[in-house]
């Protein structure tokens, strides 16, 4: 029994749980109390297997299932191991949370959900373990379909069905691109199934042209899954539609499988890389990050805001990927190692903080039944646990020290600083300036998160009914606590985590990242250059806070008087005078108005009951998707002219087809 057997065993367990859920669909308590906890244990075990696999040599397994000539190939190396940790770690917290979250679901629906949920987990794990194109595509489709059914859990709402369809459509356009990419990558002996194992692809020498074609197809296919602009349109629709734990898994983990695939194809399966691939990925990544965060800032639906923020984070990761390629091709191995570390670190971070934020919105949704931020407010007072745990997630995603978001951002910025060492002219001047885009997006992310947290959790309750909001149950809190602890640990112990990532770097680019800082401090490349010690940072900050607190209390007094808010003495303030989500996003809408299409309905000056409606829409939807949708609509309209419902016409069609085929065959 090696680690790969264990990983495969866990996947089988998940499939077993999926089938088992259907068998006991009449007993919701059993589904919640037994199946989901077992699934969570599986996730934890998978994370443990991934951790052990980091330091173990790559192992392979061939199972006699699948196509006759192509048995199922599995492989577990450091890269798969790293992403298994990401999957297991985030899925454990989310699944624990789900135990509480699905408490009030009708029994049949719950069993079905548990089935798709475990199949989704199994699909993602299989994507990471697959070692031939067939197994990969099957796992990829299982993942896509299971998540489609999870997104459409509330399928009686038309908007959710529409969101699910859009997701399915783009997922499949991406899958087709991947299929062709694997076709391009195939090993010697086209037409034979054995040419489609990853091992055969690794050993093949590709021509530069076909390598580039394969890379572009992979970038398109994986980009569609990850939410790369302009293939991002499904994310802001599908994430709000799904139940919160599912959104957490989709955003936190599923998007990362695309990053895994991109890394696997580019650095493992392809035998050559070009700098322009990196430049392309960098440009697309930066555009995605900026586009995502600008739209996140103008959203008024809390889950939609988080979905846009996921697009932003994927942009960061892709920018890191592009930079890694550029450094790697340029022969700057140590710098490629730095950027690769940054991108892997950010993937892991995003799984934890975005998972935490999404499940947190689930608590809000359960307590208030409201997703529009304009109706929420002041929830900190009614839901203190959710409030404080969400604060951790918000600070982490805003990239503030000493939490985890800052570490990966810091590493990425250090990498950008080193680009003047590149040998390509112009590139070495332009890329450092591009770093400003990263900072702009990061600073905007802080803006978005202040808006998100401030409007939902702080201030006065905007809707009187929200005062009945209740705190979430124990499993929910436990799940959130796990994810928040993950954010803290990833933030405070970066040097240990970077050390643990070393085998991944070895696998992909055969390089090590030198950390000169010891266990306390990260100092990539050299301690003279840059260093950051979050633990020292936190200790000193906490002790100064404590000292100031004790000092002020000791020397002076702790007297407090409670009174009404002052607000410059204006007596008639009410809760509607606070900034709403739209109000807080107004400066962004003003400055970046070129990016979006704004629809506004303003009340007239004499309206007795003034109503304001504002909606900022994605211009790319109207530029790229709407014409295609209209065209296919028109084409199908034209095609429907053929349908008359008269039997004579159909006989003529059959006859014409027959004639055509005869002519075709005879030539």
């Amino acid at each position: 029994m090696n680690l790969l057997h264990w990983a495969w065993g866990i996947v089988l367990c998940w499939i077993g749980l999926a089938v088992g859920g259907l068998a006991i669909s009449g007993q919701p308590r059993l589904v919640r109390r037994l199946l989901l906890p077992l699934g969570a244990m599986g996730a934890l075990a998978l994370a443990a297997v991934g951790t052990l696999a980091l330091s173990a040599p790559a192992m392979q397994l061939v199972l006699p299932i699948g196509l006759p000539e192509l048995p199922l190939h599995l492989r577990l190396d450091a890269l798969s191991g790293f992403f298994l940790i990401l999957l297991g770690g985030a899925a454990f917290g989310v699944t624990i949370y789900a135990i509480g979250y699905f408490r009030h679901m009708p029994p049949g629906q719950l069993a079905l959900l548990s089935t798709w949920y475990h199949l989704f987990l199994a699909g993602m794990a299989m994507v990471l373990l697959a070692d031939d194109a067939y197994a990969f595509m099957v796992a990829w489709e299982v993942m896509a379909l299971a998540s489609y059914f999870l997104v459409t859990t509330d399928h009686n709402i038309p908007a959710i069905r529409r969101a699910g369809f859009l997701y399915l459509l783009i997922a499949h356009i991406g899958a087709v691109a991947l299929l062709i990419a694997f076709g391009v990558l195939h090993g010697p002996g086209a037409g034979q199934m054995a040419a489609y194992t990853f091992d055969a692809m690794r050993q093949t020498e590709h021509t530069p042209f076909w390598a580039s074609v394969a890379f572009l197809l992979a970038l398109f296919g994986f980009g569609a899954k990850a939410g790369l602009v302009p293939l991002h349109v499904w994310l802001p629709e599908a994430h709000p539609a799904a139940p919160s734990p599912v959104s957490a898994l989709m955003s936190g983990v599923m998007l990362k499988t695309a990053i895994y695939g991109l890394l696997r194809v580019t650095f493992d399966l392809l035998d050559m890389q070009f700098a322009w691939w990196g430049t392309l990925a960098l440009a697309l990544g930066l555009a995605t990050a900026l586009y995502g965060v600008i739209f996140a800032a103008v959203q008024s639906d809390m889950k939609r805001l988080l979905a846009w923020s996921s697009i932003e984070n994927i942009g960061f990761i892709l920018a890191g990927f592009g930079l890694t390629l550029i450094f790697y091709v340029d022969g700057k191995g140590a710098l490629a190692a730095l950027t690769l570390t940054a991108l892997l670190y950010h993937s892991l971070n995003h799984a934890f903080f975005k998972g935490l934020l999404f499940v947190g919105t689930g608590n809000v949704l359960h307590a208030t039944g409201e997703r529009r931020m304009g109706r929420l407010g002041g929830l900190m007072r009614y839901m203190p646990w959710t409030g404080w745990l969400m604060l951790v997630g918000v600070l982490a995603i805003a990239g503030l020290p000493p939490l985890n978001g800052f570490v990966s951002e810091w590493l990425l910025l250090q990498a950008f600083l080193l680009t003047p060492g590149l040998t390509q002219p112009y590139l070495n001047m332009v890329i450092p300036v591009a770093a400003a885009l990263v900072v702009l997006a990061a600073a905007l992310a802080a803006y978005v998160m202040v808006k998100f947290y401030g409007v939902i959790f702080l201030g006065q309750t905007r809707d009187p009914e929200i005062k009945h909001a209740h705190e979430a149950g124990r499993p929910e809190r436990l799940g959130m606590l796990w994810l928040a602890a993950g954010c803290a640990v990833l933030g405070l112990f970066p040097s240990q985590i970077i050390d643990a990532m070393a085998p991944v770097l070895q696998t992909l680019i055969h390089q090590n990242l030198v950390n000169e800082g010891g266990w306390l401090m990260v100092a990539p490349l050299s301690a003279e250059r840059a260093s950051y010690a979050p633990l020292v940072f936190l200790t000193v900050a906490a002790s100064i806070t404590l000292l100031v607190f004790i000092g002020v209390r000791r020397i002076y007094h702790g007297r407090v008087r409670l009174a009404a808010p002052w607000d410059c003495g204006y007596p008639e303030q009410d809760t509607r005078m606070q900034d709403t989500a739209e109000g807080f996003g107004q400066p962004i809408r003003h400055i970046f108005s070129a990016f979006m299409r704004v629809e506004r309905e303003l009340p007239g000056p004499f309206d007795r009951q003034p109503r304001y409606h504002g909606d900022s829409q994605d211009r790319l939807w109207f530029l790229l998707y709407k014409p295609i949708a209209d065209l296919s609509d028109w084409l199908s309209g034209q095609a429907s002219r053929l349908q008359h419902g008269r039997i004579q016409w159909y006989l003529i069609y059959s006859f014409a087809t027959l004639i055509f085929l005869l002519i075709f065959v005879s030539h």
Partner: protein
Amino acid sequence: MDLGVAFQITQTLLALLLAPLLMGWVNICRAWLQGRSAPPLLQPYYTLQKLFYKDAVLARDATRLFRFAPYLILACMVLAAGIVPTLVNNLPFSPAADVIALVGLFALARVFLALAAMDIGTAFGSLGARREMLVSFLAEPALLMVFFTASLISQSTELPSIVDRLAHQEFAIHPSLAFAAVAFWMVATAENARIPVDNPTTHLELTMIHEAMILEYSARHLALIEWAVALKLFTYLTLGIALFLPWGIAPAGDLAALPIALLALLAKLTVGGAVLALWETVNAKMRLFRAPEFLGTAFMLAVIGMLVHFLLEP
């Protein structure tokens, strides 16, 4: 090491104590330039003492976040003051954070202030929070470009290395730093809520940015925030000194250079405060949506500085 720790604590405490004095000096200069009779130099200390003695008035709905934020904000600023070399270089705490972490530290304080401002749920609080976050996301890229230029010259983002390279090794003229310095000055005025982006002495709520956020604070909480504001201005000025005028900062372990370092620091701060007062007197506060242009100019200057470095300083 022990000497280093002693220096570290002394320097940080010195910053903490001198910060209100700098504020008083700027206020005096501005009063002189505007033809008013000046307040006493020690006025900020009197104000702080008065505030500490008063009973804190809190809004009934204030959460713990609101009460906790001032302590954290002051701690962030003290930490920042501990990182920037003002008197002595290579202090033991410096490697814990480089300039990028310093930007993160300022951002942490800012986010907490903005969240605290939104906590009570007043109209002005959320207005101030929104505007503050607006100014900050415009200022941060420009600030980072300035740091990039400085770090390209010294091949490091560590402040001690930058100071060491510029002050203690062979003298060289860096034209790129001139552009960066102007950009830094513009960003610093915006980040410290000074004219032309914000007006620290305004009484007109609708034009407020920073002041709108702290309207609900009183007594010791307000005192802590005011102190943190003074310390932030002090830290930004010393940061500017460390990046662009580092001459005089004592090398690590050089006790003899200390008196000169102290004198140099005081002289630079005196001049810096006076220049700030002059800048605030000759400029007018601009409309909020002109701020992107102002900070965009700062960003472009910093980029030009960087390109100048690539082209002229191989």
